[in-house]
């Protein structure tokens, strides 16, 4: 407490000299961060209140982008619904999968471990890997999935996986889950390595009997920072699903069954309609959704190991 009072008495100059090292270490990153992230985001927030077609100077339109988005845009409502389904299913499931696989891989040693990490990270590292699902899910009888199902008599004729509305969303969810061992997964792998080995020995003495108890009482609490990181990455990924929908279901997908908030945004923002103000309004709403979810998830994560 005393230290704090001291700090108040310091003049700006004294304060800076006391914390010089901190600010010098921060400076390079935050100068660039301000220029290339904060400024553009602030500009976009402002743009969301304008009409901006990229060619002409933006004109102020107030809240009309937002009212149009919420009251008149039926496609946005559909995209919102799809995105929520996506996020609610793929978010938690792939988070748990990342953790589970990272934890299992951590049980292995040496070369096996490196190999397994590569294999499970493969869909994230080998470029546009999801394109191979085009072959698997091909709508004729030569598609691998159709061929398999027909050989075993589950279906009589090929299923148009990516053309039937009711299949599009579930199929995209499966592909997304398959893709999802990415950033969070590697962070967990690295996090598991920094857990202090002696904690396990101590826990065994304290009566931890099997690997599941060990996971819950020792490993997870010890890697809470990584869990928080993984959650944020998961949120940003599962709310922003767009590429796999565009590539597998097409743009626009049949009856917009595969459209998400970000595909809707891309429709306005980059390429087709050139209504940047509207796109920025969509981005702002998506941003608010992510921030809200993040708050809730971080509160949940604080309860781990208790």
């Amino acid at each position, binding site marked *: 407490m005393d230290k704090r009072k001291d700090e108040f008495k310091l003049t700006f100059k004294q304060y800076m000299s006391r914390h010089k090292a901190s600010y010098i270490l921060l400076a390079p990153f935050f100068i660039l961060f301000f220029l290339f992230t904060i400024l553009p985001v602030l500009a976009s927030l402002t743009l969301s209140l304008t009409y901006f077609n990229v060619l002409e100077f933006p004109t102020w339109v107030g809240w009309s982008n937002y009212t149009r988005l919420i009251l008149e845009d039926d496609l946005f409502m559909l995209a919102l619904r799809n995105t929520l389904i996506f996020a609610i299913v793929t978010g938690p499931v792939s988070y748990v999968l990342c953790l589970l696989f990272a934890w299992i891989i951590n049980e292995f040693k040496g070369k096996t471990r490196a190999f397994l990490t590569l294999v499970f990270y493969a869909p994230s590292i080998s470029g546009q890997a999801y394109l191979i699902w085009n072959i698997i899910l091909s709508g004729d009888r030569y598609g691998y999935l159709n061929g398999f199902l027909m050989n075993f008599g589950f279906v009589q004729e090929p299923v148009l996986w990516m053309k039937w509305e009711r299949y599009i969303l579930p199929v995209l969810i499966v592909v997304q889950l398959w893709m999802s061992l990415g950033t969070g997964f590697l962070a967990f792998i690295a996090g598991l390595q920094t857990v202090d080995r002696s904690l396990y020995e101590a826990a065994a003495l304290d009566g931890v009997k099997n690997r599941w108890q060990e996971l819950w009482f020792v490993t997870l609490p010890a890697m809470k920072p990584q869990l928080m990181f993984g959650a944020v990455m998961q949120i940003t990924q599962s709310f922003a699903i767009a590429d796999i929908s565009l590539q597998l279901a097409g743009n626009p997908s049949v009856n917009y069954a595969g459209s998400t908030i970000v595909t809707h945004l891309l429709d306005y923002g980059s390429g087709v309609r050139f209504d940047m103000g509207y*796109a920025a309004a969509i981005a702002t709403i998506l941003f608010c959704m992510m921030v809200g979810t993040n708050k809730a998830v971080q509160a949940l994560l604080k309860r781990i190991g208790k």
Partner: protein
Amino acid sequence: MKSALKEKPRRIGKFRPFRRERKINRSAAGNGLLFALMAICGVFMAMPLVMIVNNALKPLDEIFQFPPRIFVRYPTLENFTDLFVLMSDSWVPFSRYILNTVIITGCGTVGHVIFASMAAYPLAKHEFKGKNVMFSLVILSMMFSWTVTQVPNYLIITALGINNTHLALILPACAFGMGLYLMKQFMEQIPNSIIESARLDGASEFRIFWQIIMPNVKPAWLTLAIFQFQQMWVNTGHLFLRSEELRPLQHALQFIAQGGVQRAGAAAAVAFIIAAIPITFFLICQSYILETMTTSGMKD
């Protein structure tokens, strides 16, 4: 006393008697089950890699075979020779593309890892004004769609006069929010006592950062390097680099691959190279991570 006498004499050096380090709390059945699970899932996950390798080795008639097969029947390297012929034809020499990639990917990765780590250390371990604001700004920034920020970003880069230079790709890459967040989370786990004792020994903050913090979070920055390398590597630079001779390898390779049906073979080879380079980098980093695991001494 008795047990001590029974113990075999320990030999010194590398001839130490082999003693298997058993992990606590592990059952054989559980291990077997996990192994089976990993094998099944692994097949599923490795599909794209298997596919890319096989496609690259397929002769043209097998590439166009319908229905498509996964595995190659008569492997050949002619796709690669095709690709190299095409490469030698380009009017900007290929070595130039490679150099561009080395500059962009190298500076972008190293710069990001260093800047993000430098900024993460005070955020994790120092107390100062504005700390929480700075950190929340970083987190929040990751949630804003980059599609919309592209236009303002372009204007800023033009205003700085670095449009159509490599800096237009490198500088923004040095300050992605994710890296800072990752590094900060790992640095938080370092016990304060290590830092305190280093301070008592008279080490400056920079020295603590470089000699104590960074070695202790080696798995973290190696992982970050993997992410960043991957991102920099796939960047074609089309948005900012208008001069052909400034563009990276990724652009040149994709340009060849987009040549249509007659380049399907070369395209398969391109897909292989595009995947192989980050995978090589990944494996190198992972092996260093494994090394640290055995030597890390992060104890309270």
